[in-house]
């Protein structure tokens, strides 16, 4: 990106594995998983019935009754996590509201509520129209801007599972080019029947907790949540004495132009994006300590990502851990990239490389280091976070301490 160095001064997380950034750090350290039973809707008709749902959630703990009715589950999670990041940064009230923007990556958004309206409409019944209010992911963006009085750029990236990684890169870009002084960037997605039924219909959901890069893996475990970062120009952050968690050094994105659902099998396209992200970040691949994998746990994706690692890191690939935190959070679709980027920043700050849970045995096609045996102490300062999506959309972020 351009001359300005973009730093991270606030973090917020609200997902099935953890309800704050601090708790997320503990979860990543201890190797606990948020994947378990689901009761948000009836999952009994499906072969795979587990996921990472935000349990014990009462909207009234966070919102007034009126506001909780106005906001979809997805909007609520987004407002909560963005609020944590903004408060953590201490940035509210320091800048003109027009210098502060919002960049979000979203997915199914308020589909959970919209489904109830659709079902009623199909049955000839009337349902509350307000169920439709949050059906587009940009509603969360608008609500975050409204509630925290952010009058700058508003944008919602919707590239399926790479959405929020791109939203973070784009948020950093808005600061690098001088359009904004502060951007709260991240993503949100919540469980819905649409995505649960959809991935089940494609037969890519593992009936057991997902086991990325492991022998016998059968696919993803779905999850939900939100994660945000507050991004600022380093000079501004230093001038106000802000705590700096790290920096967004660069990002790259592309469309593979291969297939709507299948990744390009050799990993060449994914490797190209990873290399380009490193180039734009001006980072030598030798300095990358580990990679937060897209790592869904589907048989094909994990092999493709491993292939891409070999193309980028060459003989060093087996020494660069490729870790899937989806084994902790589930696959949070539109929010996945942001949750994984925040996991990466937290781990860099803790000096650890998290583990990939649920090892079931060695897969000869996945022959790199996946930290299946546990998390590791590390003094590395730079990591990458990969996100791949339907449509062949790929984004790689380069993050540093």
């Amino acid at each position: 990106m351009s001359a300005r160095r973009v730093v991270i001064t606030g973090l917020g997380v609200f997902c099935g594995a953890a309800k704050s950034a601090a708790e997320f750090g503990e979860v990543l350290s201890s190797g606990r998983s948020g994947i378990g039973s689901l009761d948000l809707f009836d999952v009994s008709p499906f072969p795979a019935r587990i996921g990472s749902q935000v349990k014990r959630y009462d909207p009234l703990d966070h919102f007034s009754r009126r506001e909780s009715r106005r906001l979809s589950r997805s909007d609520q999670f987004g407002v909560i996590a963005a609020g944590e990041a903004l408060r953590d940064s201490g940035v509210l009230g320091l800048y003109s509201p027009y210098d502060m923007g919002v960049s979000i990556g979203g997915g199914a958004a308020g589909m959970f509520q919209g489904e109830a309206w659709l079902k009623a409409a199909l049955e000839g019944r009337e349902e509350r129209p307000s169920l439709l209010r949050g059906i587009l992911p940009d509603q969360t963006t608008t609500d975050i801007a409204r509630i925290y009085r952010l009058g700058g750029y508003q944008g919602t990236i919707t590239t399926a599972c790479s959405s929020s990684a791109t939203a973070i890169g784009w948020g950093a870009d808005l600061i690098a080019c001088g359009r904004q002084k502060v951007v709260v960037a991240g993503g949100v997605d919540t469980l819905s029947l649409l995505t649960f039924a959809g991935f089940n219909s494609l037969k890519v959901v593992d009936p057991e907790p997902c086991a990325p890069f492991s022998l016998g893996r059968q696919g993803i475990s779905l999850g939900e949540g939100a994660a945000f970062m507050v991004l600022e120009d380093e000079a501004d952050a230093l001038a106000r004495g802000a705590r700096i968690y790290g920096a967004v050094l660069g990002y790259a994105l592309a469309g593979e132009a291969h297939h709507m659902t299948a990744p390009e099998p050799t990993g060449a396209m994914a490797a190209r994006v990873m290399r380009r992200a490193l180039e734009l970040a001006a980072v030598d691949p030798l300095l990358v300590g580990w990679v937060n994998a897209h790592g869904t746990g589907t048989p094909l994706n994990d092999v493709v990502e491993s292939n891409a690692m070999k193309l980028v890191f060459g003989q060093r690939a087996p020494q660069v851990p490729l870790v899937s935190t989806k084994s902790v959070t589930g696959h949070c679709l539109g929010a996945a990239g942001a949750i994984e980027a925040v996991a990466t920043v937290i781990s860099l700050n803790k000096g650890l490389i998290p583990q990939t849970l649920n090892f079931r045995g060695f897969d000869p096609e996945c022959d790199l280091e996946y930290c299946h045996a546990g998390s590791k102490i590390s003094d590395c300062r730079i990591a990458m976070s990969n996100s791949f999506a339907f449509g062949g959309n790929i984004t790689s972020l380069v993050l540093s301490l």
Partner: protein
Amino acid sequence: MNIPISDIVITGSAVISAAGIGTAAIQELVRTGGNALTPMPAEVLGRKGLAWGKTTTFKVSDFMPPLKARKMDRCSQFAVAAAGMALKEAGIDLKATAPERVGIALGSGFCGLANSAEFLSGYFTGGVEGLMPMLFPNTVPNAPASNASIEHGFTGPNVTVVQRFCSAESAFLLACRHIEEGRADVMLTGGADELIPILVRGFAALGQVRGTSAPFGEGCGMIVLESADHARRRGAVIRAAVDHLRTIGMLIPGHEQEGLELLCGPERNCSLVSLSGNAADMPGVMAAVGGIPTMDVGRAIGRSLAMGGTALATLIASLPAGARGLHMATSPEGPCFSIDILGGSPV
């Protein structure tokens, strides 16, 4: 914040709308002050007297084989067709161009929703057995942009933005930035939307269908942005240039004047203003452009969330060389964009 856009030119555009196929059709419609709205079938909302802007003249078989078309949602068909038309107008031969230097940033409104509704309907009526896996991949809003890249074979930056009535404008900003940063030489940008009965029923439930005053539309407006150097090197016909792009999210209570000044900038000498979203209803915006001829393509072809692509393509096609145009787009809860376009080649 106001940042000048440097050295980005427009070398092609395409429109698919209720007005017809191509920019000439919508230009002529706007020039004559007509509209291409047609009666909305009574079964959509259970009443007559409403109009909508369906793109009835679009025949997908003119653009791709039927077997290929069957795999795509209608919105993706629009995007694939419009991308091909725009690239052709720009004279870009993708076989002779590095595919990774060509990308797309597309605004979408409710893209994906048609497939989502159909997919879920299968489940609600037939349970798990009623699910059609083939429909699921196109439930994502990035399907049109991704299908366009798959069909035409470009592998540069690929992004989709949903941001209310400014979805296309937000994508336009992204596209400019990717060129400015040297991540691509050519970026397709614009907006695509599909209009379906369940969507109109949703609007009606939310109280957004009032008489015949709020016609909804569909289609795609696609623009080819290119770095000026790249366009000159290949001897392209430069149709316009991007000058300034300003955006704010929303007018913050107590800071409204500051926001309007950031959005509208200093007084400008432009000859035509394109209005999109609800810009015509914002007094501050209209005061800033007072007295300058305006055009509002939404009145002619029906409104959609990403129609800024069509409006921009129409503005570009309407600007004589040397003339300055302004595109103003706003959404009721934000965001707002103003984009300055210079007609003809800046060289």
